[in-house]
């Protein structure tokens, strides 16, 4: 029995090295993807840098007057060479006009959108819901020039009629007052067109938030004998409030940056106008498009500066909106 021999065991292969270090292909992959992912940062940064670079001389020479005055005078001498020292650029009227138009748009669009979202979430039978959701999404896909043409030829006659009614019955409110009966191409008309353009985005965000309302709270409300509207008021609104605010701000950002549709339905005038029914308003984006064709090199620099202001304003509004939307749903008890 003891004759059995212990044979040499063959040598084990060297132990495989266990590591979490990524292999070469993964290193390449990660670098490529990360640099691709950072592109949005780079693009946004470059937009800021280049617009600032082109518009800096104007911002420097005009200073704070660029956003506090409304003159737009590109003075040229006899040889058609611009004279920077005598030229004045100010976009106060345009900024206020942008604000007026988009505020009108938001105040019309938000009630309609929120009620539409409520209908789609809590009232509509599923067949109607499907069709309506498709239609509203489709509305978001319409090109803005279509809204411009439609607004100019189809909506404006009706909108002017509504404006006349508002003037007739609510003329005592300072905003609806006016000196001259010019109703065409007013901030009101532009606001109505913009409101139709932002209804889809506000609706879809509100719908998403309403759809996330916790089912147990809804059922608890019903179990306590609530009507449907009682449930909406006690459960859905508190839950969705901040999300709706965020959606409205997102709509505001969209309305502020809209160019072509506003250009066709707004009469741009370099004067601050608070009378929303009067056919004279301002809009930064449309002003850039309008001025660009015949602009002198100096004016183009001023337009770049105006573009920079528009970029920053929309960026701030959108960022706040995104933060609010992202945080919503965690609020409300």
């Amino acid at each position, binding site marked *: 029995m003891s004759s059995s021999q212990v044979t040499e065991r063959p040598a084990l292969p060297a132990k495989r090295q266990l590591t979490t270090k990524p*292999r070469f292909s993964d290193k390449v992959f990660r670098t490529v993807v990360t640099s691709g992912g950072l592109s949005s940062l780079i693009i946004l940064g470059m937009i800021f840098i280049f617009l600032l670079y082109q518009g800096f001389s104007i911002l420097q020479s005009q200073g704070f007057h660029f956003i506090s005055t409304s003159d737009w005078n590109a003075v040229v001498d006899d040889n058609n060479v611009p004279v920077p020292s005598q030229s004045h650029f100010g976009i106060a009227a345009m900024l206020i006009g942008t604000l007026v138009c988009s505020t009108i748009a938001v105040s019309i669009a938000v009630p309609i959108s929120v*009620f539409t979202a409520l209908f789609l979430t809590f009232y509509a039978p599923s067949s109607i819901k499907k069709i309506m959701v498709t239609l509203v999404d489709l509305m978001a896909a*319409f090109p803005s020039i279509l809204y411009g043409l439609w607004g100019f030829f*189809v909506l404006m006659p009706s909108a002017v009629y509504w404006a006349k009614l508002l003037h007739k019955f609510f003329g005592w409110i300072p905003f609806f007052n006016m000196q001259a009966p010019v109703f065409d191409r007013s901030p009101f008309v532009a606001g109505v067109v913009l409101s139709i353009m932002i209804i889809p985005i506000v609706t879809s965000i509100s719908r998403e938030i309403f759809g996330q309302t916790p089912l147990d709270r809804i059922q608890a409300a019903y179990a306590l004998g609530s009507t449907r509207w009682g449930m909406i008021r006690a459960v859905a609104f508190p839950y969705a409030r901040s999300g709706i605010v965020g959606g409205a701000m997102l709509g505001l950002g969209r309305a502020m940056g809209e160019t072509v549709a506003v250009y066709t339905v707004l009469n741009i005038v370099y004067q601050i106008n608070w009378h929303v029914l009067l056919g004279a308003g301002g809009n930064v984006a449309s002003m850039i498009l309008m001025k660009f064709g015949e602009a002198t090199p100096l004016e183009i620099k001023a337009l770049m500066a105006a573009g920079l202001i528009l970029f920053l304003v929309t960026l701030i509004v959108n960022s706040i909106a995104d933060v609010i939307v992202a945080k919503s749903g965690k609020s409300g008890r």
Partner: protein
Amino acid sequence: MSTVTIPKPQKPWKATPRQRIETGSILLISVLLAVLLVAVSPLKGKLGYVGAFVVIYLIIDYVVVRLNHGKSAGVDAFFRGLVTMAIGVAVLPIISILVSVVVRGYKGLHLSLFTTDMQNAAFTDENLAAGGLKHAIIGSILIVATALVISLPIGILTAIYMTEIRGKFARPIKFLVQSMSGVPSIVAGLFILAAIVYPLTKFYSSFEGSLALAILMIPTIARTAEEVLLLIPQDLRESGVALGGTQWRTVQQIVLPAARSGLVTALILGVARVAGETAPVVLLTGGGDGTQWNIFKGPMGTLPTYIWKAFGSGTEASIARAWTGILVLLVIVLFLFGLARFLGGRKVK
């Protein structure tokens, strides 16, 4: 053994015939009262009828339900009416837009629209059969395809970064992509002017337009692609790695193929987003009237610039041309939208 009686299924939430008659008669009475009110009062026009009807209906509905079922039911009925009206208000513009585009655009439709350009025709020509959209369609396809070639890789890489690598920048990048989707189109156009046209090329070409459109497309593609990639089950990624694949292999051979139709949807939505974008192409491409195949040289007409120029010419004939251009553009956008819906719908099943 006692017999088991199976109760007949009941649907207590369904309206009984009596309730239906009640609703119907409230509607009918409101319509009649509205007509009556418009006839006797200074209210007039469509707005008068609709306004009177809405107010009267809401009041009658509220009063009837309140008398029958109490206060909170009355309020409930009132808001049910209001919410239902809101959907009508929201849908009305869509129908009006679709109808007016078709009614005003079809007059200019003819076969030579797709075989001739505006080289030898004027927008103001009374004969709508003169000239066509060939240059605009070719231009739009070229310009959007170039924008797609630039933005698709960037958009998908961004989405992969957010879903696969999830590095420390994932949240900030998500935020930046959201912000980028709010960049006004005119600002994108100005940026290309400031960064490329004035310092470098000094002339207009459609390639510059494509760059501006790419900026607008990237966020749409990145966000849609991110949503799609998030739907891919985590198990697939884990099994890929468990089989010894590197992350690159897993993404390339498992994740991306699984998400293929969703990524196509992202691509189509990106195209639909920029196909009708007007402001940057008006700023950057020059908007030519002849057929132009070279994207790096000279002005190129696109559908939006065609509509823009036709609208700007301001005569009856040119505006009819603008509506025809809009009709063609709308059909293209609707087709893309439907395609995206179709592919997106398949993905869920």
